């Protein structure tokens, strides 16, 4: 670097100047933040988890889909906390104070999570009955302000009169709330309920249409839906939005698996124990959900490895994780959405399964469509989350570290094992084919030449040979010593060698016929029989 360049980077005054983000950017967060309704609902489930709920019930309003209700039996929150959030605390929720007996990791974002539902409805009602403090009920209506905020004279944007150094100079109205009368019989105990009673017609229409299609509604037993219905389809797209919503919720929230044997070799036994200990249920329209992972019944089996517990500190921040990677040998996973790696931060799935295997840079062909896995991050990675909490900043050092560990396992352990199994399967199949074809040759010889045969010695590749001991010519048996040639000795394509060897055997036997005409006739008959059974 030249001296002149160095000189130009010297600050004009001491201390850096602050870079400020316009408040309007934050205002947009309350709408349009989540990828799908399932992501918004996942945030509400996360809030329920944090509130130590044991049961979350989501009602989609099937078959009309004109209202949606999410009810939990958690500790709720009081009117004061609600007012703090709506009066400027949005996006700045104080994490619930951890009681000494709360062992659950906190995962939700009370304010933003709560408002996420606004993405699919015009307004909604929230009611909460807390353990301590005043219960409340309120209707919240968020403005549809995308264009409005861009106007310079928008009445939604006001300059604050008295502004301390640390405060924002602008206030943005993002909506309205109205406190409603709270009825004591709203809840049997404590809890929170969100009722989106004015759903966006596009949501209603899409979901109404989706349940009309075949297999559009899951079986009441989620296990049956996962094992029988989904397995018939390549992708959740074939099942429609309603089924997809339920599947995505099941995949992303911290609920147990269908069994501790849902992944072979006991890879999720310990995770399952921890999840069962939490006693946390999520029901959608009365269907109790479990993680939609069921790796069983594949003819070629599964290759599974543990992602061992790994802990490190990067830039003064700790990251700790473990998990598993599983490969369904020789068969594409169904549905497609199960392919890839799911990263769970404190039990909550971030986005969906990543089919790129966290940007794995080697082309493993169709093998990569056999891979699924989960990484459970117990500490760290939260700062790598993008604002939608549905994806990661791929250049965050903690993400890069995790990615490297996963890729190393894929490259050095998972795929080598997969290729080795493929080779073993190919060899076994080749031997089975060779035996079957030798058998086909024997049958052609026996049937056409009325021959007596026996199996000869196998060649170096283990391919058995055929020895013809006698054939019938006219009315009499004639002993022979015709042996099928070792296919590997024939100078032709590997795939043609056994056929060439068999044809030569038939030819040798045909030559023993007394006339050219008989030779041709019997050779033709034997060849056609062989080809029929090949």
């Amino acid at each position: 670097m030249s001296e002149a360049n160095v000189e130009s980077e010297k600050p004009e005054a001491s201390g850096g100047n602050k870079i400020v983000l316009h408040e309007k950017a934050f205002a947009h967060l309350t709408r349009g933040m989540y990828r799908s309704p399932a992501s918004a609902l996942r945030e509400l489930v996360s809030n329920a988890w944090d509130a130590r709920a044991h049961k979350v019930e989501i009602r989609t309003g099937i078959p009309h889909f004109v209202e949606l209700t999410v009810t939990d039996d958690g500790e709720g929150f009081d009117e004061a906390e609600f007012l703090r959030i709506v009066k400027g605390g949005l996006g700045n929720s104080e994490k619930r104070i951890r009681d000494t007996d709360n062992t659950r990791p906190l995962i939700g974002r009370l304010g933003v999570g709560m408002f996420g539902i606004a993405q699919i409805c015009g307004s909604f009602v929230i009611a909460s009955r807390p353990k301590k403090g005043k219960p409340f009920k309120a209707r919240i209506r968020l403005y549809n302000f995308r264009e409005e905020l861009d106007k310079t004279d928008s009445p939604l944007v006001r300059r604050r009169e008295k502004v301390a150094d640390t405060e924002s100079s602008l206030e943005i109205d993002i909506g309205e709330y109205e406190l409603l009368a709270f009825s004591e019989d709203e809840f049997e105990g404590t809890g929170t309920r969100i009722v989106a009673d004015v759903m966006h017609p596009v949501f209603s229409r899409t979901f109404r249409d989706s349940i009309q299609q075949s297999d559009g509604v899951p079986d009441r037993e989620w296990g049956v839906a996962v094992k029988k219905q989904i397995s018939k389809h390549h992708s959740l797209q074939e099942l429609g939005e309603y089924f997809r919503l339920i599947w995505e919720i099941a995949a992303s929230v911290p609920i147990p698996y269908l069994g501790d044997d849902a992944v072979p070799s006991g890879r999720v036994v310990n995770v399952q124990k921890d999840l069962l200990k939490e006693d946390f249920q999520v029901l959608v329209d009365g269907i109790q959900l479990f993680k939609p992972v069921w790796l069983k019944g594949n003819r070629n089996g599964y290759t599974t490895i543990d992602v061992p517990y790994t802990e490190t500190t990067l830039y003064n921040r700790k990251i700790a994780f473990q998990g598993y990677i599983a490969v369904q040998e020789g068969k594409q996973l169904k549905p497609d959405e199960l392919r890839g790696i799911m990263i769970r931060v404190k039990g909550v799935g971030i986005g969906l399964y990543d089919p790129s295997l966290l940007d794995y840079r080697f082309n493993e062909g169709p093998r990569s469509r056999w891979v699924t896995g989960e990484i459970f991050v117990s500490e760290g990675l939260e700062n790598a989350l993008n604002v939608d909490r549905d994806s990661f900043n791929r250049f965050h050092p903690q993400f890069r570290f995790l990615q490297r560990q996963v890729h190393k396992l894929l490259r050095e352990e998972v795929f080598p094992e997969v290729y080795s199994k493929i080779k073993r399967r190919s060899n076994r199949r080749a031997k089975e084919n060779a035996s079957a074809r030798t058998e086909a040759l024997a049958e052609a010889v026996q049937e056409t030449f009325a021959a007596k045969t026996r199996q000869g010695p196998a060649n170096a590749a283990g391919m058995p040979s055929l020895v013809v001991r006698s054939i019938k010519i006219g009315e009499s048996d004639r002993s022979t010593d015709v042996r099928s040639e070792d296919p590997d000795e024939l100078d032709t394509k590997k795939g043609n060698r056994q056929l060439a060897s068999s044809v030569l055997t038939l030819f040798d036997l045909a030559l023993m016929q007394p006339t050219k005409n008989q030779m041709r006739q019997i050779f033709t008959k034997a060849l056609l029989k062989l080809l029929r059974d090949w």
Partner: protein
Amino acid sequence: MTTFKYENCTSKQYVRSKGWIPEAKERLARLPKVSQRGPRRRLRYLTFCAEGAIDVLALRNAKIIKKSAEKLYDTVTFFDFAPQAVDKTLRIIEGANGFPIDFFELINSDYPEIPQSESDLDPQDAEEDDVTFREAKNRYLYGDFRRSFPFDLMNLDVERYVIRPTEKLPGELLTAWDKILEWQKREGSFGKLKIKVDEFTVFFTAKIGPRELPDTHRDNLIRVIEANIERFPDLKHILSSRFSEDNAEKLYHSNFDEFFKLAVPKALISRALAKDWMLDLELSYKAFEFDRQPPASDEYTMVHYILHFRRCAPSLDAQINPLNLPLAVAKVYGESVTRVFTTPCDDVDVSKMDDEATLKMELGALGVAV
């Protein structure tokens, strides 16, 4: 404040037990078979669902309502105002078709028919706001409700007055009744099953009153009965012998409750006739009444009617002038009105009965803490 527990009411259970269940069994026995050798199709039921869905559970326990192979109450349609109330009921009768809206507001709307698979585009000139969304919601629900017809059994347990003084004639309840009767003639499509009904049963419940009706409503009710008396003179004798009055107006003033108990079923039957439905005289007509005294409210009397209807034969819909009643229909109508005039309400006073313990036991079996 103590909330009155309607579901605990043993008098109501008496009506269920002695009225609804046996009459619903009659309806069930008349349902057509799915195929020649197959079972009868499942009964389709519309209700306003009591707390805890006990009417549905009572019908289920009596094997009148049957769940689907997937264990869903998918032949039950019910209404409640609030989504959370619908959710609560769905926890008990999973798979039922719950409508989270005021029944009268919905049915008395008038939206055009929309195909089941919604392909209508988003409006070009409407705001993307609550008002537009609510309009769409009501439109969807209206279409869905219409498509859920016909029903075999309807429990119109509305817990309100038949006519409210502020309403315009004929009142929102009777307007809704007209639409129900019209929609009952639809051919419904439920999965692979096409259903058309020629007969159905109604459990109709209402509060007696209000006594201070506006003149237009009062005159209308009186006229309805007077017209019958003029047409079927025997009714006058019945009126005299039962109530010591020989005309409807006198009865209205001297004994409003008895007048009301005649006028309501009479109104239901005559409006049904206008829509090509008549009372099925092969089946019973039953009426019950009992008093209620909720805390912090005046005592009132509930009346329960059980009416079986069937399509008019010959059909009035095929008549050029439907006001010219065919003789056969006119005969049935006359007998129907006579039946209403001669059948007193069964006065349910559980305290005077010896089976209160049984009724409480029945309620207990339905999950009600008595």
